[in-house]
């Protein structure tokens, strides 16, 4: 048995944690009944989801004229929400893939729910370009399929098509990665299930998993290779999303810093969302032994680092807009900071650059209440970042007579709140049906990083 260094804090707390108690703890929310808090959150989410679905159907029925877009601001909330959700969807695969490659064991308590969050967030993101098409039934046009219009192929030079490939690859590979990890855990629930319905359902979901030696060897190899494949994927997806803007000639978008800046921002907002969800999950499902203060602190550190990278990117953008000597570029940034949308720029700057710096104080980054509060602030800040990039670059273009403002309609707001509702319906459903912690992976680190084993001198108990 390889023992960890004494200076490392245990990842699984509790003096009497055993393999069996991990199973019990993780299966408890699935086998038990939901509490009042869960039903409360679920009710709010379902109301938002129904309202949002109505607004989405209304958009599809009436066309995107029901949004607040105008001739000048022809991209607004829709694409803002898309980029926001895709960004949030970056943390899950980053945690499970990049941290796996770096052999960070603390990922094991958070990877499952972070990946679930990723998948649901990417579904929400994919919805927006879908409904933005106007005629969603023609969505197959984005795929390179032979069609009835002669040799009309998709344009492989276009970042929008790169997006189609990037997001569908990212979504499907992340989903497979997540599901392969879930199969052994479903098998654990299957073998414990008492009711005939539950037994049947988890039998089907677990694909007949046996857990023999070779299956685990393949499991580990597949996880490693998928992590290796998913890592460049994480970086490519948001780089490509940023190129939707960067390859255009709009001042404020036409910058080469966009890909790294967007990726850092994506990880930043994704970790903030993971933090928001995990702080609730750990409380509601009683996972304090597994998602410890140490986990929260490590995530806060990543939030601080990525937040600082984003801050450097904002400042470089400002510098370059002046240093380039391009008058339009200079004006775009001056207008962002001091024009009619100065307040959104101020929210972005204070929420994304200044607020994460508070995590330099150990007291604050180990405080649950403060972490929760700050994670919400960061989520809001990152939404405003995309709003600032998109709307403030568009609303004042080259001809001053074209200048206008963007006013969201109730449909814009409804669709956005609706996706938050649908996301939480999916996530809350996930916490009742799926094992929220990767229980089999947790068992594999119990002896090396669990408090109940570490302090003993012998490997046996």
């Amino acid at each position, binding site marked *: 048995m390889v023992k960890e260094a004494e200076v490392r804090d245990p990842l699984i707390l509790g003096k009497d944690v*055993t*393999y*069996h108690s991990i*199973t019990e703890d993780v299966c408890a929310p699935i086998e038990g009944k939901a509490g009042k808090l869960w039903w409360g959150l679920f009710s709010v989410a379902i109301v938002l989801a129904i309202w949002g679905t109505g607004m989405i159907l209304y958009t599809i029925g009436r066309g995107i004229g029901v949004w607040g877009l105008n001739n000048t601001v022809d991209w607004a909330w829709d694409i803002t929400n898309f980029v926001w959700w895709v960004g949030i969807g970056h943390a899950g695969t980053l945690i499970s893939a990049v941290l796996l490659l770096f052999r960070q064991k603390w990922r094991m308590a958070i990877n499952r729910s972070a990946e679930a969050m990723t998948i649901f967030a990417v579904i929400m993101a994919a919805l927006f370009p879908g409904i933005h098409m106007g005629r969603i039934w023609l969505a197959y046009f984005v795929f*390179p399929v032979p069609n009835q219009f002669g*040799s*009309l*192929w998709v*344009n*492989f*030079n276009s*970042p929008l*098509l*790169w997006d189609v*490939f*990037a997001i*569908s*690859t990212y979504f*499907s*590979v992340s989903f*497979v*990665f997540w599901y*392969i990890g879930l*199969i*052994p855990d479903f*098998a*654990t629930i299957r*073998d*414990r299930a008492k009711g005939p319905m539950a037994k049947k359902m988890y*039998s*089907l979901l*677990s*694909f*007949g*998993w*046996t*857990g*023999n*030696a*070779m*299956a*685990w*060897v*393949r*499991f*580990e*190899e*597949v996880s490693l*290779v*998928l992590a290796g*494949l*998913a890592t460049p*994927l994480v970086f*490519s997806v948001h780089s*490509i999303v940023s190129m939707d803007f960067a390859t255009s000639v709009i001042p404020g978008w036409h910058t080469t810093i966009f890909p790294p800046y967007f990726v850092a921002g994506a990880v930043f907002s994704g970790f903030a969302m993971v933090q928001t969800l995990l702080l609730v999950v750990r409380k509601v499902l009683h996972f304090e032994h597994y998602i410890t203060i140490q986990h929260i602190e490590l995530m806060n550190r990543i939030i601080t680092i990525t937040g600082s990278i984003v801050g450097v990117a904002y400042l470089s953008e400002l510098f370059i807009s002046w240093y380039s000597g391009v008058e339009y570029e200079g004006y775009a940034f001056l207008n962002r900071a001091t024009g009619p949308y100065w307040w959104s720029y101020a929210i972005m700057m204070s929420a994304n650059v200044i607020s994460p710096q508070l995590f330099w104080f150990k007291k604050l980054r180990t405080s649950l209440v403060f972490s929760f509060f700050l994670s919400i602030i960061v989520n809001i800040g990152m939404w405003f970042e995309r709003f600032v990039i998109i709307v403030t670059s568009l609303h004042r273009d080259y001809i001053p007579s074209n200048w206008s403002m963007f006013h969201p309609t109730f449909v814009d707001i409804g669709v956005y709140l609706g996706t938050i509702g649908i996301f939480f319906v999916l996530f809350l459903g996930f916490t009742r049906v799926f094992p929220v912690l990767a229980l*089999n992976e947790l068992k*594999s680190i119990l*002896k090396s990083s669990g408090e109940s084993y570490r302090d003993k001198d012998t*490997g*046996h108990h």
Partner: protein
Amino acid sequence: MTKEKFIYGMYNDDDLMIAGIKQLQSKGIHVRDAYSPFPIHGLEDVLGMKWTRIAIAAFIYGITGLTLAVITINYMMIMDWPLNIGGKPNFTFYQNLPAFIPIMFEFTVLCAGHGMAITYFFRNMTLPGLPARNPHPRTTDDHFAIEIAENENKKFSKEEIETMISESGTVAVFEKERIVKFL
């Protein structure tokens, strides 16, 4: 569907199981497989199994994906209908290559990832609708089981094998039938 009978020994700790396997092997018993609730590093070495070649398969799927992407893009964008976008060079695949790289990369990953996942499901025989084949429900919770075939250990009688297993630190020894082949 072929079924076979095996003798199983159950342990309640992974280290005890590894020690048990080594003890049985030193007495000349061939342990054909082991079931555990989580991956145990080094177990495959103890059991004398070779490491999986699934990563090589993934590489081949990836190369296939890359090739398919190149062929498709070349056909659509260069041969069938070249697009003039702002007068940028587009007459040969080589000239247009930088703009094609993102999709070539994405498609490589798509094929490698999904190809490997499908291979993984078939090699493990974990597919939707298949029945559970682990010897005991607790091998997915906190117990560890070793599998021994009588006909692979002809030197010993069944009773001798069972005694030796129970002397290796097990909590239970039992005989059970399991599906070994579906087709």
